[in-house]
């Protein structure tokens, strides 16, 4: 997949990762740095999205500063029930990430809620609907890094 990106694409990615220009014409500012025009910048970003390199362009909010609490949760699901249990878990908007992993527990998801009542409500629903009573919870104490700058 690396071949989908040329040097200019990498430079655009770098700028997108490290500080979007807060200017009236931000893509022009990016283009000026790379000696291409703003429409070329935009069409390259659109192509990176279409190719699946980029998932999203926009703001990243600090959930804690907005009164939300993030939590990592893990649940051990039998192989034959993976899809069914994932469907129950993924139904909640507050579940933003969910990954199947090797080892035990094998299903890891994140939960972002603005009250512990809501968090408990979601976990109780998952337990009730899946019949799996044991969900491990790892709430965040401190984050050192949240950024994918590959």
């Amino acid at each position, binding site marked *: 997949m690396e071949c989908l990106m040329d040097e200019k694409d990498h430079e655009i990615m770098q700028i997108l990762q490290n500080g979007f220009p807060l200017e009236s014409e931000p893509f022009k500012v990016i283009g000026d740095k790379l000696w291409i025009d703003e429409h070329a910048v935009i069409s390259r970003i659109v192509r990176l999205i279409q190719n699946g390199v980029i998932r999203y362009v926009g703001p990243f909010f600090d959930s804690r500063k907005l009164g939300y609490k993030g939590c990592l949760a893990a649940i051990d699901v039998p192989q034959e029930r993976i899809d069914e249990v994932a469907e129950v878990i993924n139904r909640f908007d507050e579940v933003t990430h969910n990954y199947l992993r090797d080892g035990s527990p094998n299903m890891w998801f994140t939960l972002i809620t603005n009250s512990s009542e809501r968090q408990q409500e979601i976990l109780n629903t998952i337990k009730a609907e899946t019949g799996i009573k044991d969900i491990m919870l790892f709430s965040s104490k401190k984050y050192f890094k*949240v950024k994918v700058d590959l």
Partner: protein
Amino acid sequence: MENLDAKTKNILKQLQNNFKLETKPFKRIANEVGCTEEEVIETIDNCCNNGIIKRIGAAVKPQNAGYSANALTAWKVPPEKIHEVGTELAEIKEVSHCYDRECPKGWDYNLFVMIHGRSKEELEEIIKNISERFDLKEYKVFNTVRELKKTSMKYF
């Protein structure tokens, strides 16, 4: 959240839901909110400075940027070392997420680190290097098998 005035909330809502790849993205937001483009940029800048907005930018799919081997790793780090280890791990390019977390009873692996490698071998090498560099012998590796969901939270 309660500290935000109505205009700021409105601007952030538009920024979350209506940020477009176009020549003047902030102008569109200003038109929606009914204020000037300068006010939009200033409000966003303030929110970047006070940390409500971590950044504006792109979310990449690591597997599509050439990183095919991804793992959640959990490390048993003594509390007195956690700041040093966490801060230094954050500097590693292949580390995307690094969190100190509360753990349930019976689970001793408090530092959660998401690591990405271009191959299984590279991933294992990075893990081994971390283990040796910080003298951390107890850790768990949960390799990513399949993405089941990945979205962004809608706060507004």
